[in-house]
């Protein structure tokens, strides 16, 4: 059995779409690894999930879904890593779907989009009586004064009764 898993692990390192589809269907616990740490494209952006609400007076300002920042002792103790990685993973999955799905209505039904929407939908209201909500993913690069921010995904506007 270990030999089988090892051989499957080797195959899993190659970008074979049919194999990957099969694996994602059957390997629910992601036992088979895909070992490409920070390669070929190193993760060099910070990923933020932001949202805004609309009421009769217009839109609120974009607000971050709160995520913990890294602590000074993160080499030993890094509890915020799970939440920060959640945004990255969900956006990564959404970005992969965007490459293959042209129809925005179909894209909205992908697991990662639905997960992001569910997460955003649970956030507190930004205005007293919101009638609609919209979310976006923004990427940041650099630190301090050199920090740049750009939106990479903007959802459609969801009425608060849409879901």
């Amino acid at each position: 059995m270990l030999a089988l898993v090892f051989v499957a692990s080797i195959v899993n390192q190659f970008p074979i779409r049919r194999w990957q589809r099969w694996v994602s269907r059957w390997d629910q616990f992601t036992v088979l690894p895909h070992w490409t740490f920070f390669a070929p494209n190193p993760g060099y952006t910070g990923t933020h999930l932001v949202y805004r609400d609309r009421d009769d007076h217009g839109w609120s300002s974009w607000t971050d879904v709160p995520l913990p920042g890294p602590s000074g002792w993160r080499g030993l103790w890094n509890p915020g890593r799970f939440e920060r990685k959640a945004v990255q993973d969900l956006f990564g999955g959404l970005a992969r779907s965007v490459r293959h799905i042209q129809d925005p209505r179909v894209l909205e039904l992908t697991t990662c989009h639905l997960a992001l929407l569910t997460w955003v939908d649970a956030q507190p209201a930004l205005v007293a009586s919101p009638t609609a909500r919209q979310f976006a993913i923004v990427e940041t690069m650099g630190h301090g004064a050199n920090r740049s921010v750009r939106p990479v995904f903007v959802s459609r506007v969801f009425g608060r009764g849409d879901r």
Partner: protein
Amino acid sequence: MVTAELALSVAFRASCAALAIGFIEQRVVFRRAFGPTGPFSPSVADVFGRPGWQRRLLDPRFQYVLVAGAAAAATGVAAGPFSVLGRVATAVLVLCTAMTKWRRPVSSDGAEQMAVLTVLATGLTMVPGMGPGAVSLAVYFIGGQLILSYLTSGVAKAVSQTWRNGAALPLIMGSEAYGHPSLSSLLQTHFFLSKALTWFVILFECVFVVVLCGPREVTVALLAVGLGFHVACAVTMGLNAFLMAFPGSYLCVAYVAQRMSVLW
């Protein structure tokens, strides 16, 4: 001389330590991360199609799964894989890990994956009826996964223009999630250092497979470099669990090397 039992014991304990820290960290952020507004809320987990019985049975008491996982992992560290207590801890740990994967379908990383593979391989050696070669096979499996991880990662970096031209490390150090502001500015102003470090990572990961055929001194040197590499990654990038899950498996690599290399 590294024995299979020693290599498996060290790898298992280190993996348990990595998983224990993960469980404790998740328990600490439980209210925020697993609560109704968090990324691992029951509603988000449902989107991924987890089984209904898990929702009914575990949602009200999921924090106890994290506590049980942490306790089992800590017991695994203390008891090792070859005692009755260690076997019970392994079973509980596998169960808690599976439950957590259902509730937290994203946010896994390579360290968690390596630790889980190590615990699963160790668990298979405990199945009744397994012969005396099971421990050795598990060690081969763990060592093989580690070598495969470095080789794949090294090749993926070597074919990447961003890595080859030395831009990757300053970019990573400039990121919020894994970056370090002072190191980022240091690497951006000293491009030669940046390129040298980037190529050092590529070469280390690509060359690591040489342990399978090299002399003992080369293997020891590569393992020492690997340990330093993971310490640096933990300090600068916050990859704390990698520090235990990967170097913890180095004795498995040493065992495989001493059995396979004619130059050992």
